[in-house]
């Protein structure tokens, strides 16, 4: 389950890696009433993948990833609501590009720092984006959010329906492409060098690696993916509010990834599934105290399974193999 890449790793896709996509297709047909929740989960998986790329593989600690998700969400929304650009793929591309540019621009500044300074700077950038979105009411809708977003049918053929089926398939396809890209990146020499930077940046300098440009590059790539995820949330909801940029959104994403397992690719799949289903279930059962359940789950994982849920699975598989 652990995907470390590198020069001794087998990069071929194993059968088990297709499981999430097979399950997603099965859910589409077997659980039609949960399709909107399913689309939300798919979007958050893509979002969590983007975070795993920088946190799990490159070792960049951040609390401000919502800046890219939020910018992507707002760019797609503004194009659809204010500028008459309704083609979903154009909105998606513009959102990803805008988030990527923000990632490169901010990464070039903040990635010269490390540790707590870096953490605070990422938080500051997300807060700045939040405040800009809050103040620029004429284009963002401010605290009321941006509504009236028009999203045309995909390729002029597939209309976003009220049951969310088109949105689900659209999100699944974008997630699949995002996953293929992230996986290829992780197993590539570039991905191996990122792992090297995470493991020991001092040594990477000593082998002649341009550490800082590589970090800025992967930060930009991650921002592109997060921006695309943000566009998807706007397109499927046809609404965007300030919550996409908030600290809570960034914190929740981090919690999802930690729950699933950081630096494992598929931790980004498991975390959002567990978190969002638990959130959906607990919010219905215990509307006032549902966060307590999430909190307890996180405490258990952090205390007893530092590799997240996939870490528990890895440990169990290893024990079974050693007994066999």
């Amino acid at each position, binding site marked *: 389950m652990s995907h470390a890449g590198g020069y001794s790793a087998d*990069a071929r896709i194993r059968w088990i890696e297709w499981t999430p996509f097979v399950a997603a297709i099965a859910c589409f047909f077997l659980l039609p009433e949960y399709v909107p929740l399913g689309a939300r989960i798919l979007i958050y998986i893509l979002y969590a993948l983007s975070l795993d790329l920088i946190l799990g593989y490159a070792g960049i600690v951040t609390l401000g990833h919502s800046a890219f998700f939020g910018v992507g969400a707002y760019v797609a929304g503004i194009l659809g609501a204010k500028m008459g650009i309704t083609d979903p793929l154009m909105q998606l591309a513009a959102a990803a590009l805008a988030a990527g540019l923000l990632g490169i621009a901010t990464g070039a500044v903040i990635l010269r720092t490390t540790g707590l300074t870096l953490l605070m700077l990422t938080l500051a950038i997300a807060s700045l984006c939040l405040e800009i979105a809050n103040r620029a009411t004429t284009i963002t809708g401010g605290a009321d959010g941006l509504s009236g977003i028009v999203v045309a049918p995909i390729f002029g053929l597939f209309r976003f329906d009220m049951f969310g089926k088109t949105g689900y398939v659209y999100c699944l396809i974008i997630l699949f492409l995002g996953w293929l890209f992230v996986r*290829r990146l992780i197993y590539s*020499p570039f991905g191996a060098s990122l792992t090297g930077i995470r493991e020991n940046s001092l040594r990477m300098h000593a082998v002649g690696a341009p550490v800082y440009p590589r970090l800025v590059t992967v930060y930009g790539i991650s921002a592109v993916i997060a921006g695309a995820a943000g566009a998807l949330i706007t397109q499927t909801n046809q609404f965007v509010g300030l919550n996409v940029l908030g600290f809570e959104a960034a914190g929740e994403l981090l919690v999802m990834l930690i729950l699933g397992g950081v630096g494992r690719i598929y931790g980004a799949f498991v975390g959002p599934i567990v978190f969002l289903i638990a959130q959906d279930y607990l919010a219905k059962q215990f509307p006032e105290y549902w966060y307590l359940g999430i909190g307890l789950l996180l405490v258990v994982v952090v205390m007893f399974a530092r590799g997240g849920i996939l870490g528990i699975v890895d440990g169990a598989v290893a024990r079974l193999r050693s007994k066999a």
Partner: protein
Amino acid sequence: MNVALETRGLCKSFGALTVAENIDFRLETGARHALIGPNGAGKTTFVNMLTGVLAPSAGRILLGGDDITDAGRAARVKRGLGRTFQINALFRHLTALDNVALGVAERRGIAARVWLPASRHREVREESLELLATLGLADDARQRVLDLPYGKQRLVEIAIALGLKPAVLLLDEPAAGVPKAESERILEVLDRLPQEIAILIIEHDMDLVFRFARRITVLVQGVVLVEGSPAEIAADSRVHQVYLGEQHHA
């Protein structure tokens, strides 16, 4: 003899504290040179200035005749300056093979590629395996470094540096913390390193220094006290006074 590495009037100060003062140093091509001195002599500061970790306050550094004083760390490595660290600086959770391959890939200029999987770059893997085999680590190539004994980890340090095909190799206490039996193994490896590489070893193990080096520089409080052959250094009364004490070799 060609000069592989040279410093001219190299100085480093931290505020009022001077840790390197006017160091003139020459390392010939193919040299086996040791830099010794008591704790706090400025040896590691000197190495950090050579490798670009610290910027000198004054003076110049020339590598193969080119001025690299203002070059970045990566640029110095690409020009042929390799190093090992006093305390292991390895990719602890990666295999020995990946540790070496990361350096080899950088040298070959493929480390930023994204299209093919890393494992499909066979030339990197084969060169790394060959290098590990020459250091007696063939059977450990697929072991995670943190699972290897400390002596073997020190050899992986050297293997990473050799993977860069350096013209100048700086070995910062390669036998530090290694049991006597394993330090013999390290000395064997050092003796077999390609003759064309100029090697500067910084070491506290006087036995290893005097067996390995053909020339020794003694650094005391950031100043070069004396430089000479091992016999000359062993016979120098100033060295006895400030550094060797009772340990000196006849």
